[in-house]
């Protein structure tokens, strides 16, 4: 499962307890809706690190990367690719 699909699955399962609200799509505002509270954000970062080897630095902790599934997946993918480049 790619990061995008897995993020969607994880958010629905963990933050929404399996039930997505009406209109919940990849651009749904996770911050304004209150889904991305402090607790969920920390859990999500831990999960992305463990499952997808995406390491967030302090400078990455800005709202624009967490505002939607699309934004999160795009950022996580770019972080993973830049880490892989460093290893190569």
């Amino acid at each position, binding site marked *: 499962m790619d990061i995008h699909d897995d993020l969607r699955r994880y958010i629905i399962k963990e933050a929404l*307890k399996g039930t997505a609200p009406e209109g919940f799509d990849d651009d749904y505002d996770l*911050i304004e809706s*209150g889904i*991305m*509270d*402090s*607790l969920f*954000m*920390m*859990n999500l970062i*831990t*999960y992305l*690190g*463990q499952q997808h080897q995406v390491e*967030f*630095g*302090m*400078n990455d*902790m*800005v*709202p624009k990367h*967490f505002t939607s599934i699309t934004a999160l997946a795009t950022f996580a993918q770019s972080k993973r690719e830049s880490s892989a480049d460093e290893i190569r």
Partner: protein
Amino acid sequence: MNLNLAECFFQQAEQQPGHPLILGQELEDKTSYAEFQAKVESLSGKLRDAGVNPGDNIGLHYQSGRDYIAFVYALWNCRACVTPLPFELTATEKQQIFQYIHIDAAISSVRLLDQLVGATTTAPEAIPLTEQAVYLKLNAQCEAPPQLAGINAAFIRFTSGTTGDAKGVVLSHESIFERIHAANQILEIGAKDRILWLLSMDYHFAVSIVAYLTFGASIILPKNGFGITLLTAASRHRATLIYGSPTHYAMMTQDDSNASLPPELRLAIVTTTALREDAAAHFYQRFGRVLNETYGIIELGLPAINVSQSRDKQGSVGRILPDYALRLDCPPGQQQGEIIIKGKGMLDAYYSPWRSRETLLQQNDGWFRTGDLGRVDGDGFLYIVGRSKEMISVGGMKFFPEEVESVLEKHPAIQSATVFGVKEKSSWGEPAWSHLVLKENEDQPSEDELRTYCKQYLASHKIPGRFLWVGQLSYTASGKKIRNPDKLRTI
């Protein structure tokens, strides 16, 4: 009649019913003292109807926020005691609490209910309390120590460790009352104060939240942890105090907007773990303010707070408070040694095996040995040199390395393990790393395999960020594991 902290809050609510107690992210989102008192009294009635009796011990499995505070005060109003059940713990870790502490029932968030029911021996009936909370009557898995009945217990806080080190700290209403008054000689919290609250209430409540409600302050609860959100909430509500971990201040520092801290801010309190010098310096560069470090111990309360605004004293946890006395047990010829303290509001007892305050104090002539190492400068400012108990703190959640080591050492491929906190290059306070020695004739498991294995037994924040294979672990001359990262062998 015994002291009850819920009644202290009710008295405050009668004096200033319209004063805001909780301030949300938006200006219009506020709950007054009178509204909160009504909420506490309503919940008290529902809890009594559900079966809560005076003297019961109730587990609280709920996310931090205004409902958490309301449930604690409602339980106190029912003359029950509270044991926090941090929901980020695994089912195994929660089972450990149930096996160690007698818990009659639990309040759980509906959203987190599955995570609690998995830790109980039977599937309890869930009685709705609110739309988001249920009450679960439990079959207690152990007996309460008989001495507990003689204490007006408010909290029993469980601290995990290796099997022999697990402990429950019993705090009475009277002890917490003494603690908040001792701390307030320096903090001077009152109705004029608006405190931006950023920590987990499972681990921080007794000398903070209780003080705010007793002394009539307002608590600001931001809606998430982004730096810009915290700064906006602080400015919007003209925060006078911030109470957070180094991670929260780092989040504010790295915010790239022009947001600033409000001029009314008088203290930016750091707790949970030692503050890195560079983090304090960056915060000062960004905001022109020093951070105020504290020395908090569950057994003692908050015996030292650095309220100095001088950068010269950055790195110190401040002078010992007037209601406490400090001694250092220094080896001959040395200026630093174990911190030993006595004063008001000490724990009432360790839960099991039961050790009363009197017993503990008799062992040390009335003093409490903290196990931490410190030194005191010429102005009387205390500096923590080492957390000799080696507790690790990640984002404000504390745990012992031995607990993680015992899980790792049960893995079939691991001969031995050391877990230690990393202070350098860490984004999240003090993440744990591990050194592992491979068993003979075993294949080295991957990091992914080890993480998956740990997830069965440990909460996420306890799982080491790195698994480093070494030829042998580092030990002191007396055979104890070395957990100081500066002294560890890496080959």
